């Protein structure tokens, strides 16, 4: 782990993702309270917290799938605008993988992966297809390229969704509970793909309830409760000696559930 010695060097770089004093309400519900977060290039940040604590909202505000009431969001040092061409362009630079895969139901697997580059980056068709096949091979679903999403298992669909995101050559990828909709036997295959990406140095923000995976893959754990970042820690420290009582309680309920 060259991580420690890199730390000072990293903090001088511009973060890939930066949230400053972000606040968000749903009506009277204050879902995000003064959230500050910065993610450096190559860093894997895992967000953990109870259901309803605002993890998805936090994740979705990063590329403005949800609007914010106050604060700033910067992608690679650039302010995320509220709408328009520039926003679309910045969104194309941050990949997003959803709990429910959201593959385009009317398109083949291959077209699901090529449509982003074709429509947004205006990549020539042949080039986009070659790269798509390469990516599909990388996530192990190249043999399914000409099927439609509904013909694939959940695990396969989620791996295609990751390939679809990779095809955009994103600066970072956001994962919102990528394995929560999967049957247990398929969780591993998806986590393996994400672990590979982590090894290759992909910058990622991952919301997950898979604690072993989190511990393995994270450079940093963020614990969120009631819209507040309660704790930021290394995985080792977070799982062995969490700083807050809330985090301890949360981890204990998980342990109880596992037994």
């Amino acid at each position: 782990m060259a991580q420690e010695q890199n730390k000072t060097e990293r903090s001088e770089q511009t973060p890939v993702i930066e949230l400053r004093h972000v606040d968000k309400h749903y009506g009277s519900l204050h879902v995000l309270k003064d959230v500050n977060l910065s993610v450096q290039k190559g860093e894997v940040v895992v967000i953990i917290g109870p259901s309803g604590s605002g993890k998805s909202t936090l994740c979705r505000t990063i590329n403005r799938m949800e609007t914010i009431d106050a604060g700033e969001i910067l992608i690679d040092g650039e302010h995320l605008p509220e709408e328009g061409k520039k926003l679309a362009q910045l969104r194309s630079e941050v990949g997003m993988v959803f709990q429910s895969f959201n593959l385009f139901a009317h398109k083949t697997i291959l077209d699901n992966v090529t449509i982003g580059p074709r429509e947004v980056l205006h990549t020539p068709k042949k080039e986009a297809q070659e790269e798509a096949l390469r990516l599909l091979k990388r996530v192990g679903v190249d043999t399914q390229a000409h099927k439609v999403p509904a013909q694939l298992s959940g695990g396969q669909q989620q791996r295609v969704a990751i390939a679809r995101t990779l095809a955009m050559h994103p600066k970072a990828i956001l994962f919102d509970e990528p394995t929560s909709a999967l049957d247990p036997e398929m969780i591993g295959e998806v986590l393996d793909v994400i672990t590979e990406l982590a090894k290759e140095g992909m910058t990622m923000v991952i919301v997950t309830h898979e604690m072993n995976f989190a511990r393995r893959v994270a450079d940093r754990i963020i614990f969120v409760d009631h819209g507040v970042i309660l704790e930021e820690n290394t995985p080792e420290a977070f799982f062995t000696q969490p700083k807050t009582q809330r985090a301890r309680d949360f981890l204990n309920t998980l342990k109880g559930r596992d037994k």
Partner: protein
Amino acid sequence: MSAANVTIRDALYEAPGPKTKKRIRFFTVVSLVVLAALIFLIIRQFYVTGQLDAKYWSLFTRLTTWKFLAGGLAGTLKVALVSSVVSFAIAFLMMVGRISKNKIVSWISTALIELSRGIPTLLFIYFFFLVAPQLGLKLPTFWKITLPVALSAAGVVAEVLRSGVNAVPKGQTEAAVALGMRDATVFTKIVFPQAFRYVIPSLISELVIVLKDTTFAYVVSYADLMQNARVLISNYDALLSVYLVTALIYILINYLLNKASVAVARHRSAVPGATK
């Protein structure tokens, strides 16, 4: 519509048990008997009033009669086809307008849709037939029937399309937006193609209505099937026989359209991924 009915029926009712089966059989027999009796009575009445006389039916032995009817049918199909295309184009624009983020555009589109749905086809026809010429708008006869039929259907088609758009899961839009697609691209490449597939059966049902509306062609003296049937009636003084044959032709076409709609619906649910 019929396709939707099939699924709703499947969802609402369980497979019939032995008792239910027996009752269904009983009522089937009863209704068949009643139907046979009715048909017998009608034919007997025709016979008594002399409608079955050869003079009313002999015209159908002539090829010219059939050619004349075929010409009318061609006119009907032409009006129906062009109306449908025009109607779809207008409907698409009104639907896009209605779901637009621009409040004023949305409001105007909604108003237009309501107008189209609320005004009877015949009123539209009178407008293009009687009012428009006075305003200096002189259209060929074909358009005097085709445009009103198209306008009259457009509102319903717009709402059918909108229901399809609303049925596309939000996740599809989110995934497209997350890839960096602009609104227009998301709509044309992701949302609308799926919405269109959802509503194909409803659109085909709407075709049946358009086809029926084309029978107003006689108002503007356009030579459609109905108009030509009326010519035959006055030439041969054969009211019932001609109407019967004409009705059968309309029924046949609409039956085929319905079949097509069901087939499309089946096909859609048979291809995984096409639905959902």
